[in-house]
């Protein structure tokens, strides 16, 4: 709710404040099953992730391994998923009949059995467009779709962002050792010879982390126009060279939409003055072994529609500047040799684990004044990959 966001900013002006706070909460051992299944039913690979709830101070992923996972149709058809690691159970090709209803049966190694309710197969209309718009603060990505049949009124999107970026600095120097006639062995700097182009251009990817859902239920026709998916600040590294986003669209039923909306309210929109109070989250998976046991998750079968766009730096306002955290001006240091210790500057740079990039000046006596930066600023492979994605244009 935007009113709450507004209120928070108003509060700042009034001297109010929001502080990070981690109360010591009593966190009982729960270990409830979490089954995340937004299952692609329109052919091709499909997967479901099984995990367990953990205690509040434990942020690790508690994978559920060794379970038997099966999709069952109300025509008694069965499709078995196999464990692929990291809690993921998958099937190479799943094509379900949209005239039927399906459910998911899960048996864990400890003998507990879970079964979801029968749900229909949702047919997702194509994405009309993925668009974007720049304003003073950055860009906003939108999706648009429509369903002439009017059957799909509720939608969920997720996306995978990929962007090309360059290391902000080129390493032209490296550390060396010389024998000082007076002092003996001392650190020195020397030219690298050839710069390493393999660490200059990289790509990085990130999946969506928020729940993005929208509905046309209030509209006279089944149209979603320019639904905001995400925004990127103008200074983000994502926009420094070229940016691409692959948007996946799924149709939901009303009940499925409600589930995601409640999860969104509970975990992304709580807390502020007019925010809703958290409430119980009810999915469509139930324990057969212990009826009444809490199970988190809603099994959804839906076809998926994709759309990818690219945004190049040249399409964006020229005055936007990329700020790479860790390589901002305040973390870039010029090392000037001191009069008492002509090698002290190099020792300091080494001590600070910085990489020499370029010589600024040569002082009398041949001592060097140079620029040094954290390694991540010269080697893009520390945050991304230098293997160009197959889809990259």
């Amino acid at each position, binding site marked *: 709710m935007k009113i709450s966001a507004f209120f928070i900013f*108003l509060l700042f002006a009034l001297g109010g404040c929001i502080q990070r706070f981690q109360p010591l909460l009593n966190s009982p051992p729960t270990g409830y099953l979490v089954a995340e299944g937004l299952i692609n039913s329109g052919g091709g690979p499909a997967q479901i992730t099984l995990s367990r709830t953990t205690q509040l101070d434990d942020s690790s992923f508690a994978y559920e391994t060794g379970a038997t996972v099966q999709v069952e149709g109300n025509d008694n058809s069965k499709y078995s998923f196999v464990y692929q690691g990291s809690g993921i159970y998958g099937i190479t090709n799943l094509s379900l009949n949209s005239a039927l209803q399906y459910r998911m049966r899960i048996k864990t190694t400890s003998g507990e059995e879970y079964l979801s309710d029968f749900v229909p197969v949702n047919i997702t209309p194509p994405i009309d467009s993925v668009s974007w718009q720049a304003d003073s603060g950055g860009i906003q990505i939108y999706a648009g779709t429509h369903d002439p049949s009017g059957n799909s009124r509720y939608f969920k999107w997720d996306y995978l962002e990929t962007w090309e970026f360059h290391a902000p600095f080129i390493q032209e120097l490296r550390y060396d050792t010389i024998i000082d006639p007076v002092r003996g062995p001392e650190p020195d700097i020397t030219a690298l010879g050839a710069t390493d182009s393999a660490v200059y251009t990289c790509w990085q990817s990130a999946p969506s982390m928020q729940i993005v859902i929208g509905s046309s239920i209030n509209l006279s026709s089944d149209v979603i126009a320019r639904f905001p998916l995400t925004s990127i600040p103008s200074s983000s590294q994502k926009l420094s060279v070229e940016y691409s986003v692959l948007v996946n669209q799924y149709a939901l039923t009303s009940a499925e939409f409600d589930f995601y909306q409640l999860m969104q309210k509970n975990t992304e929109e709580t807390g502020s*003055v007019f925010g809703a109070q958290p409430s119980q989250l009810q999915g469509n998976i139930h324990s057969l072994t212990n009826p009444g046991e809490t199970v988190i998750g809603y099994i959804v079968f839906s076809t998926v529609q994709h759309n990818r766009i690219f945004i190049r730096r040249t399409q964006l306002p020229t005055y936007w500047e990329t700020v790479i955290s860790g390589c901002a001006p305040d973390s870039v240091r010029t090392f000037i040799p001191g009069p008492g210790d002509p090698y002290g500057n190099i020792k300091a740079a080494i001590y600070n684990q910085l990489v020499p990039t370029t010589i600024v000046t040569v002082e009398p006596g041949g001592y060097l004044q140079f620029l040094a930066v954290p390694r991540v600023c010269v080697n893009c492979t520390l945050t991304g990959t230098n293997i160009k994605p197959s889809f990259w244009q």
Partner: protein
Amino acid sequence: MKRHSLLPAAAFLFFFHIALGQSPDNRLITGDFKELTATQFITKLESQSGLHVYFDSSQTDSLRITLSVRQQSLTKVLVLAFSPYGFYILSDQWDRVFISKKPFFILPAPSLGGDSLLQQINRHLADHDEQEINSGSVQKAGLENKLYEIGDKISPKGQSRVSIAGYVIDAKTGEPISGASVYLEKTGTGVVTDQYGYFSISAAKGGYTLIIQSIGMKDTRRQLQVYGDGKLTIELHGEIMTLKRVTIAAQKLSNVKSNEMGVQKIDIKTIKQVPVAFGEGDLLKVMLTLPGVKSVGESSTGLNVRGGSADQNLILFNDATIYNPSHFFGLFSAFNPEMIKDVELYKSSIPARYGGRLSSVLDISSREGNKKNITGSAGIGLLTSRLELEGPLLKDKTSFIIGGRTTYADWLLNALPEQYKNSKASFYDLNLELSHEFDKKNNIYITGYLSRDGFNLNSDTIYHYGNQSISLKWKHIFSNKLSALFITGHDRYAYDNSSSENPVTAYKLSFDVNQTNAKAGFTYFPVSEHRIEFGLNNIYYRLHPGTYEPVGTKSLVATDKIAPQQAMETALYLSDQYTLTRVLSIGGGMRYSLFNYLGPQTINDYAPGLPRTITSITGNNSYASGKFIKTYSGPEWRFTVRLAFSDSFSIKVSYNTEQQYIHMLSSTTATAPTDIWKLSDPYIKPQYGDQFSIGVYKNLKSNTIELSAEFYYRDIWHYLDYKSGAILVMNPHIETDVFNTKGKAYGGELLIKKQTGKLNGWISYTYSRTFSKQDDSLAGEVINNGRYYPTSYDIPQDATFVGNYRFTHRYSIALNATYSTGRPITVPIANYYYSGSERVLYGDRNGYRIPDYFRMDMAINIDGNHKLTQKTHNSWTVGVYNLTGRKNPFSIYFLSQNGVVNGYKLSIFGTAIPYINYNIRF
């Protein structure tokens, strides 16, 4: 002052049959008196003789009497004691004994023309008045000494008890004074003036001294000779701030001696003294300092009274129901402090004339315009300004008062970060009141009120909300014993929000609730021991529960309109307050309320025995316009018993039941401007509650210090709670998203209050608990396994200090401090990953509390000089809210951001907030 005080100039009036020197004494006095004050001495004589001695204690204060007497008459003893000091002693045929510095004036026997006596008396009085004026004393003494004849002297035979009625008004402005205590010195019979300053008191024929006291006004008295029913208007003068003198608190009647309990009355002077954020007197914030009144946080003006929810308070502003009493996200209350006279909060014994809400009645009265002169006031603060103007339209007959308030908070919003710079927030409110006195028996009042708030977020979603009300009141006095008040009016609360950012989805959502009121209330005093009230209240409700419509031609938004709801709430009431003896008084009342949910409407049918969901709808029924769809009715009881063991100590017990037919639906903790109201219908049952309370009241130091302790236990049925993921806005079948609860609340409240003197204020302590549990077999979902859980406003401990210290006439300092337990919240019990992020799973409802709350505020009030000749009077208030800068948490919450869960603590005011206000009166 002594209770048997009587000025000599008045004393002679009764003497036209007396024989001087005749001894009325039937019991002789014996005793050794040593170094007694005159008062002590006379008290002893009175107890021995059984006679009353009338004297002016101010004349005898300095005397110390030492005397030994054996078997002497009272008159003789008095002569022995007082003659050496130049006093005159007199006794009359009614066995009254008088002591006076002035010689008694014996009138000739009354002539046949009855008036001549009065003329003589008045002439005599006029002489005395002149003398007194010349000697520099105030003119008021004249009025106090003047004999008022009440009723026709040739009054009907056989009528032993007569009634005296009238108004108490401010001599300077002509405004009525409510809550003034008016009592007969001789019998101790007393009444309190109503909202219009009206009183009616009954007594046997005879001579009386009528004492009139009101807070902030000088006490006064009237000498009455009562022959029959009659009228009297009493003007009170403002208290000149001579701080050396301690005024007897006028409200001594309303605490120990009043029959009501759990009532707190606060006048605007006190409200303005209490420091609040931004420095503008805020009555709701002051209410929060009283025991038993809480709120969930600083930005909420929703009051939780004795464990009740925010919608269980009937907020009346000049008899108009106010649905949203807040401005500007709850940081201001919706009432202009310049317009308010006083506010009364009823939290346990709610009079039968009020009804429709379970927890409390907050009755806010605005001032009446000055009937003598055009005057006004204005105030300027950092965020708001206010103006008020009043005066006569027809001198002493018709007056107006008009007030307005607005905000200029945009400078504050401009300080916001770039992306919010285009935001706007503003509010205003307007008040108008006209009052006209046709004659002594007929007064009419026309009041109008309008409040409006608007804000938007960077030209995206625009929110508006506001209250509107208009009412016409006619106060008619049939006779001294019977008076009536007829009210008709219309109240409305509406909000809307709209967004045009995306032309395709541009929409406007609007909601409103309207009520048309007609009330007739009668007050009947057959004899002084009884005060009977009866009447009829009728409310016609019409709600538009939601309209969602397109904005602009490009919008594809489909118009969706939830059918309007209408209902009629009718109540008949009768109550009697019966004073059996000085000690015992009982009150009983019954309010019979009848609620009809009216067509046109379509009501869903649900499969019997199944949880109510969309899937269990089996069909529906349509009802024609005006058809009674569902009727609820029932009696509501109001009982009180008061045992006043002395003038300064009493115990009271009360039992109340209440029904409520309109419910606020809110899934947020704080009262939000987007909360909706819902009428009871075939599925939404009326809320029902009862309360038992007992209180002990003790006054100290001539009633200037009030101590009270009250304890209560309440039950609440059918309060609505929400299913998980409930949709409340634009939901045509709310019954699928809510369920009934059963609640209980109990607690104790202690209050020490000092209303007068250089140092005044109060200290309150409350221990209270409130719980709720799901009580609905058709909910389909079990909250906290059906056990009792604390409600989100369960705040067990609360201690508050409110103090004001006046250094000089011009400088005073106010300080308040409050501590309370943190409110309960629902917190996570586990982590999980879903949809790309770590998330939290919530456990039982309200299983944890936010940290405790503490705040201290201070203000300094500086008045300009008090020269009466000055055309304008100005004052400054400088203060600091949240003096210690403590970051009191409003909420603790957890957000999934960038894939991980972060915990946050939100404080509304994170620093000390200084403020300054300038006020001017003209």
